[in-house]
Each structure stands twice: as structure tokens, then as C-alpha cells.
């Protein structure tokens, strides 16, 4: 008896039944998604009643494939990355029943898009150095401060927010985690322009924003613990299936090399081949990591993958410009845009070069990742910390 196959078969039947009962073509898009959530086919590893069936996460892929096959509408997952990838698992881990009732379904259907209000200009890699204040006022909290690097803030209805509720205890102890309504009049969203000319991110200014205490996630002062649950979800995402050779940046550069015989020079060839080999090494490392995860040998090696990815994207996009020569001196377009996704391959080589610089900064700088690898993988001793036991108020800024 193969129980795994058994489960998969039953799940498949469930999808068949659902699709028979809800015509993916004629049913209203939102109605269809709500019904799918209610049937437990949204994220099968979530509990029953919360959009799931309490199954193994890897079964989701087959469900999604079946719905895609049937031409069913999806929940635009790329528009709600923060909601689906970070807010949802954190809600599941720390949310009250009321919170789950209120927020999970519209999150999954995409009726409510979420953004993340963690980063601050003064904090940077020191994520816990949040200065945005939340002060209790009866059954509400009043929030003032400034956040930055918020993608989708202009489209989001809700946000996960980390704020300081007690400046008189050490840095990590005085934080609390909230669900913030982005339509509050005290919220101002300003596009933050990047070196590419685009504005993928925003600055968010909070002035007297009111949040009911019922929208607090976790206990007062436990915000750092809750936020770490969120951030771990960010780093776990190593991505699904096999990646073919010459995917991504190395493919762009290889294609350019093949197309430009006149620009070939031995020094560029040497670097091309070195980076080609390194890209293959990184691809195979990713494959190996996926195989490890599949047999349950996980680890913090995701940090290593992100390091390699950033380094290769930067070196390859730099080489691409050198390879192009005169063409590399031109840029496609400096106009301010506000894209919802990064379009690495649709834009020009200059854009790729500049945008790739962010790969070693966003979602944990390479320096922080190297610390993580050194300490958590290799077991090297941590740095001396001067900010552990000092009240936040007393830390020099």
C-alpha cells in the first residue's frame, strides 16, 4: 500500500469534483477563487477551514497544475507576493481565530493585496532597530514613523507592520507586530526611485495611524519573534522545479556572445567561460539543494544560493556591457515607471547591470548572509554585540 499515492489520488479526485461543480470558464472569477479556498484547494498544507486540507506542501504543485490545465483563473500570485508568501504563514502561526476568519480568504483570493512595513531608513541590515513608534490609546494603537523599500504599497489594502511599543527595553524586546490598514488617512505612500530610473518600491510615512488592538499579531513585545517567522519564510523560498542550463543572466550573455562574433576577444572569452562554469556550478548546487530538501535534509544553505545568484548576476551583467561595447554605452529608457514586477530580460543590458546591484542588498545583504553562513552553517563564533542589553532609547543613533 502506497499511502502517498493514495493521498495524491484522492486529492486529484477532489479537484475533479470541484472543477465539475464550478465551471472555471463561466464562474465569476472572485466567486471561483472563494469557492476553491472554501474547498481547501487554496494551499493544501493549511488546515481544513483555512483554505487547506492539512496535507504535505509538495502536493500543492499538482493541484495548481490541474487548475491551470483547466483554464481556471489564478489568484495573481505575483501581485501579492508578500501576502501569500509572508503574511499568510505568519497569520497562520500567530493569528487569532478572528484574525484568520477576517484576513485569510481575501488574502488568498487577491481581493486584498498586502505589503510589508518592516524596513526603515535608519535600520538597514539591523532589522530590529525599528524606530517607528506605536503608542497605546485605549483599544487602539497610534503609530508614527517612516518605512522604506515597500513594494506594492500603492496597491496594497493591508500591511504587516513592525513597530516599537517600548523604547525602554533592549532593541529586540520592545517590538510589536500589527496588521495595518493601508487606507488609513495617516498613511502616505511616495514612490522611491531607484538607480535604474524605475520605482519598484515606496517610502511609507505613518502619521497618527490608528490600529485596533484586535489587529495585533502575537503578544506586545513579541514582535521580533513574529517578524522572524515572516523573514524565515522569505529565505526558505528556493523555488520549485528544475532549472535548465543557461537560464537567466548566463543565457542572456551566452546568446549575446553567439550573436556577436565581431565583438569576441580572448580576455572576454576567458571571463565568459569562467562565469559560464560558475553559473552551471550554482545551478547544480541548486539542484542538489532541491534534492536534499525533497528527502528532508534541509539547512540554511539557501543563504549560499542567494550569495551565488547575486554575485553571478552582477558579474555577468557587467560582462554583458563589456561584450557589447558601443551598444553598452546606450541605455534603453530613463523614464520613471512604477512596475509591479522586475523585468530583467525585457529591459536592456544597462538596466540589467544596474538592477542586479540590488540582488546583493534586498532581502538580506550579502554581508549579512555571509555572517549567517559563517555562524549558522560553519559554527564560527558571533561578533561581539554591544547592543544586546542596552535599552533602545540609549543606543547611539
Amino acid at each position, binding site marked *: 500500500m502506497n499511502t502517498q499515492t493514495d493521498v495524491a489520488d484522492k486529492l486529484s479526485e477532489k479537484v475533479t469534483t470541484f472543477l465539475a461543480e464550478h465551471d472555471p470558464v463561466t464562474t465569476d472569477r472572485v466567486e471561483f477563487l472563494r469557492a476553491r479556498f472554501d474547498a481547501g484547494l487554496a494551499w493544501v498544507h493549511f488546515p481544513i477551514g483555512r483554505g487547506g486540507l492539512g496535507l504535505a506542501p509538495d502536493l500543492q504543485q499538482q493541484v495548481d497544475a490541474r487548475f491551470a490545465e483547466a483554464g481556471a483563473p489564478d489568484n495573481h500570485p505575483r501581485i501579492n507576493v508578500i501576502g501569500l508568501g509572508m503574511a499568510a504563514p505568519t497569520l497562520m502561526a500567530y493569528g487569532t481565530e478572528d484574525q484568520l476568519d477576517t484576513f485569510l480568504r481575501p488574502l488568498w483570493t487577491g481581493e486584498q493585496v498586502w505589503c510589508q512595513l518592516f524596513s526603515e531608513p535608519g535600520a*538597514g541590515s539591523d532589522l530590529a532597530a525599528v524606530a517607528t513608534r506605536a503608542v497605546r490609546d485605549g483599544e487602539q494603537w497610534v503609530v508614527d514613523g517612516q518605512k522604506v523599500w515597500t513594494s506594492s504599497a500603492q496597491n496594497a489594502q493591508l500591511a504587516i507592520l513592525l513597530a516599537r511599543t517600548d523604547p525602554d527595553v533592549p532593541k529586540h524586546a520592545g517590538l510589536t507586530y500589527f496588521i495595518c490598514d493601508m487606507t488609513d488617512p495617516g498613511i502616505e505612500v511616495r514612490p522611491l526611485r531607484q538607480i535604474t530610473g524605475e520605482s519598484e518600491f515606496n517610502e511609507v510615512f505613518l502619521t497618527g495611524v490608528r490600529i485596533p488592538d484586535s489587529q495585533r499579531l502575537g503578544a506586545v513585545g513579541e514582535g521580533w519573534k513574529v517578524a522572524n517567522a515572516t523573514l524565515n519564510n522569505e529565505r526558505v523560498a528556493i523555488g520549485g522545479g528544475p532549472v535548465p542550463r543557461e537560464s537567466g543572466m548566463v543565457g542572456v550573455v551566452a546568446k549575446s556572445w553567439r550573436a556577436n562574433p565581431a565583438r569576441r*576577444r580572448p580576455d572576454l572569452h576567458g571571463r565568459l567561460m569562467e562565469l559560464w562554469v560558475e553559473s552551471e556550478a550554482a545551478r547544480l548546487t541548486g539542484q542538489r539543494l532541491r534534492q536534499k530538501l525533497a528527502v528532508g535534509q534541509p539547512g540554511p544553505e539557501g543563504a549560499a544560493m542567494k550569495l551565488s545568484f547575486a554575485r553571478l548576476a552582477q558579474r555577468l551583467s557587467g560582462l554583458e556591457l*563589456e561584450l557589447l561595447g558601443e551598444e553598452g554605452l546606450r541605455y534603453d529608457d530613463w523614464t520613471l515607471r512604477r512596475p509591479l514586477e522586475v523585468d530583467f530580460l525585457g529591459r536592456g543590458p544597462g538596466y540589467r547591470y544596474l538592477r542586479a546591484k540590488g540582488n546583493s*542588498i534586498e532581502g538580506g545583504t550579502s*554581508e549579512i548572509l555571509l555572517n549567517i553562513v559563517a555562524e549558522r552553517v560553519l559554527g564560527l563564533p558571533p*561578533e561581539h554585540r554591544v547592543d544586546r542589553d542596552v535599552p533602545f532609547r540609549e543606543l547611539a543613533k
Partner: protein
Amino acid sequence: MTELNLLYTDVEDDLRRTVRDLLEDRLGPSAVTAMYDGDRTIVEPLWRALAQNLGLAGLLIPEAEGGFGASAREAATVCEELGRAAAPVPFLTSAVVATIAVTGSGHQVVAELAAGVTTAALAVPFATAPYGPVPRLAATEGTVTGSVSSVAGALEADVLLIPVDEADGLAIYAVPVSEAIVAAVPSLDMSRQLADIVLDAAPGSRVRGDAAASVRAALLAGAAMLASEQVGVASWCLAGTVDYLRERRQFGRPVGSFQALKHRLADLYVSVESGTATARYAAAALAADDSDAEVATAIAASYCSNLAVTAAEEALQLHGGIGMTWEHPVHLYLKRAKAAQLALGHPGEHRGRLADLVDLPYEATDAGKSR
């Protein structure tokens, strides 16, 4: 053989101070940033102040021809400061490259350049290395026809100096910009925006024939002076990053106290010192008309091109998120550095030429040329 002086003379230090003061006074980074949205209003007054008030336009022109009769040493010092400020002025393209291409021709454009009343650009793609043949246009009965792409300094120029194919070799024609179609192109480095040029039987004035050596000398000096500019870019990146990391605090301490970052900045310092030495040597060798000038230029160009890129990339990374923003000036230097790396010969082209010059050929045979 006397050893060339690689330090800055007092005259050069004074010149540096003058240029730096003017740039600090007149040019904020936001003015350069605005150029990326098409606002080029800063260029003309700034260049007029440098070219005419300080007389930099005629720096390299002999006194007999109306200029200052200074040498590549002084021009290199100016370039360093222009790099340090990411200044959007056509000094390199007009006062170095175009000027050297026509100096000694006796053509009236030389006197106009010397006085700073005319700004010129040599109409070759900015990526052109000093070692190969340059693209040429055709001339018939005093008019020039053809096109050149990605020319630096053309947007700021009054006169275009066009390499023209003549029966007995290369000639240079001067064509007023009013007779040309000069189309600005979005450029990686908008502080030195490029343009495509189209000439359709444009009336031109023949500046000189037998011009291959002049064009080559112009591009070679351009590459050497660009190396000093790149040193300026790298110096700004190093100094700016050190300042930022001394102030910026994370985890309760200055970010600049973290050893991994300190070591990277120390490495960068070593490279900036090395780059400075190579750029100084190239300038000194050109100034002295030393037989080693071409070797010196190839060394400086290949070293400093990569130095500036490395420095700007490190500066951006070590600034963290703020470095990725449009408001912070670090991206102006990254774009300037990356574009400069591709300009006037890629580092690999300079090293290739060097391999020939110092007898380290690639090929197994000793047939001569290394590629």
C-alpha cells in the same frame, strides 16, 4: 634616464584647488541627476566658467597658438577633479581629444578652441580604441556625407571634427553642428551623453590631411586623461564610502568598525593608490614626450578602467539600500565608471596592445601581432 615625477607639482595642486572650488560652488549632484530626466541646463554655464573663466579650454594648446601651453600633467589633474565631481562638461572630448586632433594644423578652429569660444568633438564612436583604424566618412567637393553613432561631446559641441577618407589617407573636416543632424541618445552615463550624427552633404572645412597620427595621438591622450578621470571617480567612491561608514551605525556600533568592510576598503585604498601611480605616470610620460608614453597609457587605461568600476560597485554595495536610490549620488559614479570602462578602448584592448609593445604575444608563433 631621469625618473619621471609622479607627485603633483605645486602648480598642479593650485590648479586642482581652483577647479575643485569652482565645481563645489557651481555643481551639486542633483544637477547631474536631473540630466537623467533630460534637464541639461547645468552644462553650458558650468562649461563656460571652466573653459573661459579658468581658461581650461586652451590648457593643452601651445602659447603660440593662443593657448596656455600646459602639459598632459595639468590636464590630468583637471580630469581627476572632473571625475571626482562626475562633472558633465566636455573637457575630455573638446579640450583634450578634439584639441589634440587639430593642434598644429594652423586652422582657425585652433584659436577658437584656445579662446574657449568654440567647443568641438571628434566624431568617432566613444568606444573607439587608439589602436585600430577609425571609422571614416566620405567628402565630396567640400561637403561631408555619412553617419557616426554614439559620439561623446557632440551635444556640447559647436563644431564637429569629422574623420574623412581621402585618396591619400585620413583627413579631418570641421563641420558646424548647425549643418548636421545630432540626435541625443539615452546613455548609460548621462553626465556624458552620447549622440548619433548624420551628415548629408554638410559643408565642411578641411582642417588637415595625413591625419591618422593626429587622430591616434588624440585618442591616446584621451585614454590617458580618462584614466585620471577614473582615478577621480574611484577616489570619490572610496572617500565617500569611508565617510558614510564612519557615521552610519548598525547593531550599536559604526558600520565602519566591522572588519570585513574595513578590509574591503583597505583593499580598495591599495588599488586607488596604484591607479593614481599609473595615471600619474601616463600623464608624466605624455608630458615629457617619453618613448614609454604608449605603454604608460595602456597600463593606466587598463588598470584605472577596472579600478573605477570596482570602486563604484563597492561604494554602492557598502552604502546598502541608500546606494540603490536615485537621490544618493553614488549611482552617478557607477554609471560614469561603467561607461568609461567601455570608452576609448576596453581594458582588454589596452592589454592586447600592451602585449605587443612589451613582447608578451599571445600567439605561439612570433609572427607579430597578438590577435
